[in-house]
């Protein structure tokens, strides 16, 4: 067993505990520095795990409890390059967030670095867990930390409301997950995901299996923010402090989808066939992608805008997973990592604006961003990357989806995905042009309310050295865009996905210690159609940005016609995002019922 495997969890958690224990006796600054060093160590170890797990998965049994006769006695971590890459993403974003927040949270002493470290440890554990209940424990841990960090700005209604909505909806989601785990335990007598998969495989999927699948997927969709489980997300991300948003939007949402992919392939793929489930999950993914993009367009509060862009991206990643093919899974791995870095970079850019100009409002900042050119470049680069500009990561991920969808007969899916990218990335580019270029008009009645005045401010702006702000932004954007130049990135993603898709080989390795023969990485180059989608969506995003800026210069006839068609749906959509937690829980219940009903219909 590889000695490095427990460390991405153990290092941050132990450091957090030590900072709490000795925080009183160790000076300020030192705790920030210790947190940064611990996160950097986690980053290095996670990256090493990506390479070490390249040939075969690393299986680690805590307490040395190896399975006996195919029955898991203890808890396992199953490290594959995909999971290790997610852990690396967590550590990277956390490192950027901690550097950015240097001296930001002096007011609360060691509490902020401590909570961030626990957050990192929990997310790494979640990314690597191979045991269903263990997954749930890390889920709970990262949720609890996230609620507390979201509510940081306790003196304003926004953060309190955001944190409460976040906590209540996600708790209900986690109870759904626990119910699903209970049902599976009753059927299979196992908590290890691979063992559950072995027990379910080849049997007819009855009500219990279908409902357990529904509850698990619904619960993790709540965390991910898929429609209609997404309402809490925009409330929470719009009010959390920027360094926290980097982690929330950059990786926490995607982790929910990572879990869905693992649970389907390792646990359920032997009993629920891909052809049955595919249309249901694709439906949820596409609605999420379009709805997120559309709501994104209506925002002027930059953090809330990026929150809806996150939802739109989540929809796209979900579609990749929902194809339930090797290519789709590979696409989701690439998408999740590159998009997460780019969204994180965009959030850092917003953080720079908030610190500098005390505002996170697109209209209010019009033209003022010229004095923060690096933030502008980062923000625009993130927008272009998310717009599927070839050859960068999101484009590559989309290319994998395009090819896979065509062979499955879902050729209509990629155009919808491209439209979603146009909507969300076009909006980000619009904001970039207005803030950093001074383009467009200074007012737009279509937009939602302006952000609250509660933009958190550092204790003393003058003491913050500028490089600590722009280095994380630039680094995240560069890594996000540069990731695609890793040799054979798509091939490695495909090979890794292939290992997860082969359920029985995976279970044999885990439960009986028989590793499958190493497979060579296939080579992959995007098809012409994929390039066409990439170029079209980039141009579309630019055009959509221009539309957002100069919408009111269109001929009056066109605008009247558009108003007749769009005004009521727009008002309706805005009204749905009411900010009332009771509404959100009612939607969550409805979402579970619809998901379960749909799965029941397609399977039966």
């Amino acid at each position, binding site marked *: 067993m590889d000695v490095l495997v427990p460390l991405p969890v153990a290092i941050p958690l132990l450091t957090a505990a030590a900072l709490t224990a000795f925080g009183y006796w160790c000076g300020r600054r030192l705790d920030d520095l210790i947190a940064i060093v611990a996160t950097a160590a986690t980053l290095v170890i996670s990256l090493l795990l990506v390479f070490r797990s390249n040939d075969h998965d690393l299986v680690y049994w805590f*307490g040395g409890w190896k399975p006996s006769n195919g029955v898991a006695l203890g808890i396992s971590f199953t490290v594959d390059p995909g999971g290790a890459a997610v852990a690396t993403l967590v550590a990277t974003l956390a490192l950027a967030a901690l550097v950015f927040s240097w001296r930001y949270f002096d007011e609360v002493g060691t*509490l902020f670095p401590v909570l961030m470290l626990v957050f990192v440890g929990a997310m790494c554990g979640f990314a690597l867990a191979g045991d269903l209940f263990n997954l749930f424990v890390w889920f709970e841990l990262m949720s609890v930390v996230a609620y507390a960090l979201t509510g940081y700005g306790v003196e304003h209604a926004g953060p309190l409301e955001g944190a409460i909505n976040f906590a209540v909806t996600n708790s209900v989601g986690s109870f759904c997950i626990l119910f699903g785990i209970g049902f599976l335990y009753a059927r*299979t007598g196992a908590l290890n995901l691979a063992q559950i998969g072995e027990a379910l495989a080849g049997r007819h999927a009855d009500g*219990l299996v279908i409902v357990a699948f529904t509850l698990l997927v619904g619960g993790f969709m709540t965390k991910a923010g898929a429609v209609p489980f997404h309402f809490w997300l925009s409330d929470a991300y719009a009010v959390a402090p920027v360094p926290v948003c980097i982690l929330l939007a950059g990786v926490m949402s995607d982790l929910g989808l990572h879990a869905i992919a693992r649970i389907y392939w390792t646990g359920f793929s032997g009993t629920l066939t891909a052809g049955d489930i595919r249309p249901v999950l694709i439906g949820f993914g596409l609605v999420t992608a379009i709805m997120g993009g559309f709501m994104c367009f209506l925002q002027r509060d930059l953090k809330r805008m990026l929150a809806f862009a996150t939802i739109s991206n989540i929809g796209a990643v979900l579609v990749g997973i929902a194809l339930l093919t090797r290519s789709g899974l590979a696409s989701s791995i690439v998408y999740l990592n590159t998009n997460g870095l780019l969204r994180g970079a965009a959030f850092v850019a917003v953080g720079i604006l908030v610190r500098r100009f005390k505002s996170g409002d697109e209209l209010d900042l019009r033209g003022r961003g010229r004095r923060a050119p690096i933030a502008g470049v980062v923000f625009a680069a993130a927008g272009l990357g998310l717009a599927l500009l070839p050859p960068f990561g999101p484009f590559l991920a989309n290319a994998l989806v395009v090819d896979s969808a065509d062979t499955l007969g879902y050729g209509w899916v990629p155009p919808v995905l491209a439209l979603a990218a146009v909507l969300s990335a076009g909006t980000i580019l619009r904001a970039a042009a207005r803030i950093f270029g001074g383009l467009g008009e200074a007012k737009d009645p279509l937009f939602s309310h302006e952000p609250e005045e509660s933009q958190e401010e550092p204790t003393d702006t003058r003491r913050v050295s500028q490089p600590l702000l722009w280095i994380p932004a630039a680094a995240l954007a560069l890594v996000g865009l540069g990731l695609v130049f890793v040799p054979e990135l798509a091939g490695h993603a495909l090979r890794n996905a292939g290992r997860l898709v082969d359920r029985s080989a995976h279970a044999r390795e885990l439960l009986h210690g028989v590793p499958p023969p190493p497979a060579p990485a296939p080579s992959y180059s995007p098809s012409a159609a994929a390039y066409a989608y990439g170029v079209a969506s980039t141009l579309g995003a630019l055009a959509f940005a221009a539309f957002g800026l100069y919408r009111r210069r269109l001929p009056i006839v066109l605008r009247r016609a558009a108003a007749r068609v769009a005004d009521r749906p727009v008002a309706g959509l805005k009204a749905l995002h009411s900010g009332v937690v009771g509404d959100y829980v009612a939607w969550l219940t409805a979402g579970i019922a619809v998901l379960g009903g749909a799965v029941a219909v397609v399977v039966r």
Partner: protein
Amino acid sequence: MTRRVRLALFGVAACGLAALLLWSITGLPKFGDYHGAYGKILNKRAPQERQTSNVVAAVVFDYRGFDTMGEELILFAAVMGVAMLLREPREEEAPVPEDPVRSDALRAFGVSFAGATLVLGLWIVAHGYVTPGGGFQGGVVLAAAFLLVWLAGSYRAYRGLARAPFVELAEGSGAGGYVVIGLCALLIGDAFLHNLLPYGVAGKLSSGGSIPLLNWASGLEVTAAFVLLFNEFLSERAVLIDPTRRPS
């Protein structure tokens, strides 16, 4: 969405969810007919392999000890979160609550009662792997002993007992201690959280290998976490953020 619409939406959705849940329940083994392998195997193996008569404790601290580490950290993080959320702005000087109890007899009674609670808590923690109990339950009782001092005694006496830096030290040590015990096994070449100590004989306090260590670490963590939680809620001032802590 108005209240009426919300309840209507929920009504329809809840019917669907109820139908789903009932459907799945028909697939469960009948109540009392459970035959899952995992629990059966552990019931058979744990008392012999681990010399613990309480199999639940063996599962909590050994077979699934890694889960417990996560749970302990949830406790830790939630309490840290409460401390952060209930912080007072530094300018506001929160008033020190007056001592509400005036009767010396009541105080004496309260303090001796606290002593009894303390002993009970220690007993529950100590015997966790022999009989029902353990660090988690006993920790709450131990914290209650501190609470009794607060309720019956004076606020100042309580502050003396539960000084924030020491409670923080205890909490950090409890959470960190668990991780350190795990890492020790790693250092000597075993898996994380692998057993470190001889097993002894079941039914004795010295039995169970590493289980007592992890049990006491959890007990310390839970006690400290609940004392901090009670502190935060009862005094409603930021005990954790002492302005004297750093020059500002």
